[in-house]
């Protein structure tokens, strides 16, 4: 061991080169271990992206694409599947729970994911952890949005803030759904999954802004339209279309027409008796629109009438009544009713809540092509209306006109992108997968997340390999640096070796001196490298988590790491054989006497 102490003293005598070698090895070791750690941690966080979900169902296609889009929100969303399919599957006996997922919108580059509330109950990641709410609370309001921790942090959002969603993913601005803003109801705790970079909205809300007219549900009587909204007036076409039949009838004969109108009114009125006086008004509006189609009417009046409540009233009072004289045709009962309508109008104005109108219009849209409003719809509207009112007062958020419409429509989504499914028993997975893959109504595919994750990870194996090769070369460069430094020191150390020989050192001692030096430098380099690694991990842990949403778990070195370190140590000793052998030969030929 005395020879090692000699080697150590010799090293200390060459502090500069010693420390340079030490650091070059330490840095290469840090890099190598760092890459290993990063690889493991990336893999871990990758594999932790989803858990507890037995199957992910999407349209037929590559499983990796479905996984990427549904779990990682990366890449194009897959083709859609019908909402009906979701309902069918969710009723399957093997299915314990199922959550529909719809994607395709973004907000400042962050994914907007539409789902329903059950998502928060069933979606889990890592070791079956559920998403946790950091602040606010998950609200089942249609326009409530739950945002991921990173979205909140980066965009500096608070509870109650309004957000506007862009159609299409990515940073490039697509169509702004600025007529349907959302309000933030909850901010999630970091999960270090794609959810951190996502906004979660309701399926209904997503569907609402994706209806044919992009959520511009059009103007309603009693609402003042913005000039810019005129372009959207096409949306009214189908409303008118709904009434074409009426118009037609009306044209055919006054009596029939009036009667028809009146019946219609009456019917509605009775249905919503006491409930919503607005309904009458709505029908009045419908009538009004009928008039719109008539050539006999003054054009000016019609235009105004279509867009302004005021005009409508005027029209109501003047043109319509004069011309068609409801009272005359309909008798006293109608007359009363008409009075009633007027009263309602006033009342309605006073309230300044036009939700009913919204509903009515919306119904026109929804029941595209239907001439009659059935009772069911109206009831439904009313129900929605009530519900919404409660909410609107609870939240500081104020709905836009379109939102109110959309809200009351309670639009059911037609299509979704994926379904997360939990099964009653793990044994059911393959059977269920088979069932889904052979689904009759439309082509579907079901993937098992754990397997698909593994498969997908294989894609990275090439990059992993490249990274490995690079780090191996970095270590090799470190060791070669050590070799060249030892080789350079050999000449000046030949005298030292000769002295040692004269006092009785064997060539083996001299050889050992070199090997010992290399081994010591390498070992110290490895220790320093490990220390540097943990220092780096400690320093980087919190910024990585907060800025990149990547949680770096600091673990003990794995057996693989130790194996790699052992290989480095052995390589250093093997590389030192070269100068060792050289000095051995020198010491044999030089003997004890060096003269220079």
């Amino acid at each position: 061991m005395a020879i090692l102490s000699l080697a150590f003293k010799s090293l200390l005598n060459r502090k500069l080169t010693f420390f340079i070698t030490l650091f070059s090895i330490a840095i290469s070791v840090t890099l190598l271990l760092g890459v290993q750690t990063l690889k493991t941690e990336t893999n871990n966080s990758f594999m932790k992206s989803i858990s507890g979900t037995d199957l992910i169902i999407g349209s037929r296609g590559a499983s990796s694409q479905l996984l990427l889009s549904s779990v990682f929100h990366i890449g194009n969303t897959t083709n859609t599947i019908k909402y009906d399919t979701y309902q069918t599957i969710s009723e399957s006996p093997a299915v314990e729970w199922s959550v529909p997922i719809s994607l395709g919108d973004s907000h400042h580059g962050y994914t907007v994911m539409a789902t329903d509330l059950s998502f928060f109950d069933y979606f889990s990641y890592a070791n079956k952890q559920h998403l946790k709410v950091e602040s606010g609370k998950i609200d089942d309001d249609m326009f409530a949005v739950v945002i991921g921790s990173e979205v909140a942090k980066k965009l500096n959002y608070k509870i109650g803030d309004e957000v506007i969603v862009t159609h299409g993913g990515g940073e490039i601005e697509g169509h702004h759904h600025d007529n349907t803003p959302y309000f933030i109801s909850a901010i999630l705790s970091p999960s270090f999954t794609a959810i951190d970079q996502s906004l979660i909205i309701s399926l209904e809300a997503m569907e609402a802004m994706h209806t044919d007219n992009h959520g511009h549900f059009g103007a309603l009587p009693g609402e003042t339209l913005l000039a810019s909204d005129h372009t959207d007036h096409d949306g009214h076409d189908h409303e008118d279309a709904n009434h074409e039949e009426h118009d037609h009838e009306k044209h055919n004969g006054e009596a029939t027409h009036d009667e028809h109108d009146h019946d219609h009114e009456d019917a509605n009125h009775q249905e919503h008796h006491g409930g919503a006086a607005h309904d009458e008004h709505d029908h009045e509006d419908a009538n009004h629109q009928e008039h719109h189609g008539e050539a006999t009417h003054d054009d000016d009046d019609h235009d105004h009438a279509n867009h302004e409540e005021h005009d409508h009233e005027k029209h109501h009072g003047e043109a319509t009544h004069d011309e068609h004289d409801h009272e005359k045709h309909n008798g006293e009962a109608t007359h009363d009713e008409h009075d009633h309508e007027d009263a309602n109008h006033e009342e309605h104005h006073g309230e300044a809540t036009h939700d009913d109108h919204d509903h009515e219009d919306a119904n026109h849209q929804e029941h595209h092509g239907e001439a009659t409003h059935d009772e069911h719809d109206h009831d439904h509207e009313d129900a929605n209306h009530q519900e919404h009112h409660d909410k609107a007062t609870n939240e500081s958020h104020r709905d836009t006109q379109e939102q109110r419409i959309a809200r009351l429509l309670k639009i059911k989504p037609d299509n979704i992108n994926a379904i997360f499914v939990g099964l009653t028993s793990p044994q059911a997975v393959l059977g269920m997968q088979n069932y889904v893959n052979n689904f009759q109504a439309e082509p579907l595919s079901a993937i098992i997340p754990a397997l698909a994750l593994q498969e997908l990870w294989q894609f990275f194996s090439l990059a992993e390999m490249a990274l490995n090769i690079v780090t191996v070369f970095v270590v090799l460069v470190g060791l070669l640096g050590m070799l060249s430094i030892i080789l350079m020191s050999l000449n000046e150390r030949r005298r030292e070796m000769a002295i040692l020989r004269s006092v009785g050192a064997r060539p083996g001692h001299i050889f050992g001196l070199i090997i010992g030096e290399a081994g010591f430098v390498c070992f110290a380099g490895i220790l320093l490298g490990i220390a540097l690694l943990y220092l780096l991990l400690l320093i980087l842990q919190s910024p990585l988590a907060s800025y990149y949403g990547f949680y770096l778990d600091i673990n003990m070195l794995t057996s693989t790491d130790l194996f790699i370190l052992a290989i480095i140590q052995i390589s250093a000793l093997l590389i030192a054989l070269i100068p060792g052998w050289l000095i051995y030969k020198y010491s044999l030929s030089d003997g004890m006497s060096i003269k220079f």
Partner: protein
Amino acid sequence: MINLTNLRFAWQKKDIIDISSLNIKKGQHLFIEGPSGSGKSTLLNLLGGVLTPQSGDVSILGQSLNALSSSQKDSFRANHIGFIFQQFNLIPYLSVLDNITLPCIFSKARKEKALKHSKSLNEEAIRLLAALGLHDSELLQRSVNELSVGQQQRVAAARAMLGSPEIIIADEPTSALDSDHRQGFIKILFEECQKENITLIFVSHDADLKHHFTHNINLQQLNQVNFKESI
């Protein structure tokens, strides 16, 4: 005590040493005169067992070096021979004391002998330094590179004497010294060798030093290789 018989050594097919016979008796102070290039260094390496002759044998203390393996020869050298060279005797990264006690790393026998004189190796080293005229304890703190050449040579002599080896081989130990120091150094060396009954082989090209020695040999005469022709 040291017997050379028909010793022949060639390096890269060139004869360097060809000595038919040489006997050195115990306690003898032998001066070997030889200019550089006369095969001096090679002879010392042969005596030390660092080089192995092509033919003939070196026998030291009754032990034939040919009979020993190279590592046994290294141990034998460590145990029985102390060397002093012209200069650069000291290892720069070791302290003065570490330089002196260096042979003890490789020779247990010398370590044990050194410990008979003093309680510790360092104490023995200090004792030897004092005997060689280096009393200044401040000297011990200095790096060996900061010592004067004369001091360095005395440190080297102390190392060669530590643990009382039977033989000291000095290769031009005084050529780096000025004449005053040279005389003093040789005087001290003689005294110490006398005291310890050490056989001293002193090799130098400087014939002026001859008169200090009871025995002297001219290597050019002894060595039958004619260098003037071959060089």
